[in-house]
């Protein structure tokens, strides 16, 4: 009876209108899906392009600065330096103690009305010049010193001069001074060494990114040297040695949850444990590094476990089968094969730590630090915190500095991610 039913089924008409509609519908849904996917991709790419475009547009001039040419007389009397002392063993100290602000004021005064165009901190340039070349003492030289921020911004064309004075953010007097100086050929705009080599300052024209960069590097050094070994060893233990039971399940869940905890919570933890309980120094890279290590550690454990798990069991069998001990199997076979994956995860975790702001705010790394940090305990700030601080500053000149700092941060992130991709491609193994 069954076979009769089967036999009585009519032959399929593959060309029937119903069949054709079904096929057309299938093609239609496929093309809709493809177009949606393409649209999403284009949207994402244009967001990224827009972000990069605005940052570069606002930021590239942050790497430039405007200098004013002034005539300076290094008069020992005004400086208060005994010329005899500059020959002695304490020459540098004697030079450094000079009253350069007075020399500066005298030089600037010669500009007349345009005196208000020079940066307040310009005397630092004079001190540096004289300390490098003590023979200049008593001589009169032309020196390029940083212009104040308003002049710098005028030189970069940041103001719309067609607007009325109150709306454009720059006074008529400054514009007039700028035009006079420009006509006299006393202005030049070029690559800013101060921005690349200096630390934070209250004046935009004297602010630099190097201090924050060093702070970030010191912080990341602490993070890496703590989170990497602890993370990798934890991953190895959990994956290769720990027995599967309720406790390891609990630990696994906890670590996965830790990776998802908002970073500000780590900041609070760092504040409570490292600063309040352990009484470690505020604003120090070592504390920042410890806090970020707590945050990076679960990322490394998760990446490490995935990498270790992806090493085929046949490799472990092979090594065990010729009498390798468990430790030999792990360190001579599993770990070398898992290392590219572990490194990739680590670098991505470090890149996240590099871009992290919130926890560092909590442990005091948002302090104003005008010196480049020299050690793990000296006060420091970090690149993203510097971006945050400058973006918060009311001075108009910090707008472009903020974008320039973002560019520096992005360059570091790009370098780290490229390294991760390079390592992954170079050491990726196929079985």
């Amino acid at each position, binding site marked *: 009876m069954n076979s009769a039913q089967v036999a009585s089924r009519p032959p399929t008409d593959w060309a029937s209108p119903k069949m054709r509609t079904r096929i057309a519908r299938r093609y239609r849904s496929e093309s809709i899906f493809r177009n949606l996917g393409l649209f999403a991709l284009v949207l994402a790419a244009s967001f990224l392009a827009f972000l990069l475009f605005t940052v570069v547009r606002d930021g590239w001039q942050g790497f430039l600065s405007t200098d004013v040419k002034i005539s300076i007389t290094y008069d020992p009397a005004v400086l208060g330096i005994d010329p005899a002392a500059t020959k002695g063993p304490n020459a540098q100290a004697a030079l450094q103690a000079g009253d350069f602000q007075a020399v500066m004021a005298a030089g600037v005064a010669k500009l007349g009305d345009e005196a208000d165009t020079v940066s307040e901190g310009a005397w630092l340039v004079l001190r540096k010049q004289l300390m490098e070349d003590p023979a200049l003492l008593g001589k009169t030289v032309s020196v390029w010193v940083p212009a104040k921020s308003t002049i710098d911004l005028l030189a970069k064309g940041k103001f719309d001069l067609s607007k009325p004075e109150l709306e454009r953010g720059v006074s008529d007097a400054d514009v007039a001074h700028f035009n006079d100086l420009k006509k006299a050929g006393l202005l030049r705009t070029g690559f800013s060494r101060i921005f690349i080599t200096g630390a934070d300052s209250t004046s935009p024209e004297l602010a630099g990114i190097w201090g924050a960069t060093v702070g970030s590097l010191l912080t990341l050094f602490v993070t890496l040297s703590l989170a990497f070994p602890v993370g990798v060893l934890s991953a190895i233990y959990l994956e290769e040695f720990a*027995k*599967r039971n309720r406790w390891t399940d609990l630990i696994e869940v906890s670590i996965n949850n830790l990776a998802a905890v908002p970073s500000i919570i780590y900041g609070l933890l760092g504040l409570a444990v490292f600063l309040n309980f352990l009484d470690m120094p505020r604003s120090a890279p070592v504390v920042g590094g410890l806090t970020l290590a707590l945050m990076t550690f679960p990322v490394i454990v998760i990446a490490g476990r995935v990498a270790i798990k992806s090493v*085929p069991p*046949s*490799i*472990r*069998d*092979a*090594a*065990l*089968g*010729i*009498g*390798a*001990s468990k430790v*030999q199997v792990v360190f*001579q*076979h599993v770990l070398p*094969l898992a290392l590219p994956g572990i490194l990739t995860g680590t670098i991505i975790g470090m890149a996240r730590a590099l871009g992290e702001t919130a926890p560092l705010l909590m442990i005091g790394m948002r302090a104003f630090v005008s010196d480049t940090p020299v050690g793990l305990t000296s006060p420091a700030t970090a690149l993203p915190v510097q971006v945050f601080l400058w973006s918060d500053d009311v001075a108009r000149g910090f707008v472009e500095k903020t974008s320039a700092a973002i560019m520096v941060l992005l360059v570091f992130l790009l370098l780290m991610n490229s390294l991760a991709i390079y390592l992954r491609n170079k050491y990726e*193994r196929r*079985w």
Partner: protein
Amino acid sequence: MTVMDLSAQNVPVARGIAETDVTTKMTARHVNVFYGTKQAIKDVSIDITRENVTAFIGPSGCGKSTFLRCLNRMNDTVDSARVEGEIKLDGTDIYTGDMDVVQLRARVGMVFQKPNPFPKSIYDNVAYGPSIHGLASSKADMDSIVEGSLRRAGLWDEVKDRLTESGTALSGGQQQRLCIARAIAVDPEVILMDEPCSALDPIATARIEELIDELRGRYAIVIVTHNMQQAARVSQRTAFFHLGTMVEYGNTSDIFTNPVEQRTRDYITGRYG
């Protein structure tokens, strides 16, 4: 004809073999293996001799691989596995404290179903075992161990000019012979082979079978196979496993031409499996 019930016997005796002309290398007595609560091996007792190739045959899931992995304690790596009974190598119980598991696995080498060379050079693949066990006193010594092992595995002529190339770049059959070379480089007494040809083509299989025949006598060889022709070709003794028990054990020729047990007869003639 007398039907012998091996599982009830204290001392299993392979039929028709004069016990004087062989050396017993490994003995298993009343071995039970559990995975959790599930019993995978039920009361298996067997003697493995040095002069013969012993084949374990049986349908899928009958426990032949599980039992094989007990012989060098590879089952230790499975958390839920529990082994009862007594397995001895040269009279020493391998599951007691007297026997170090690392040394045991050096003495009882293993070749796996899927060729699994290390992703290292051919030379390093073979040299790894001797180096971790400290078997070579010098570089020259190691060179000769590597060459000797590769020669005995019949691979030397094919790879002697490219010892620094990766072991994974070889063909499947060459990889499996490399794994055999790696196993014999530590000079084991027993070699366990877990379906060594199941991932290979017929020509590579034939080459491995020749190799097993060449290695016979020097090493006690135990081979698990689901290919009955292969068991008939390479082995002198055959044990038939079914549902976790060893149904019958004897001379290969007897098992294949004149099995005692009905289940063996059915399997041999292809009624199930």
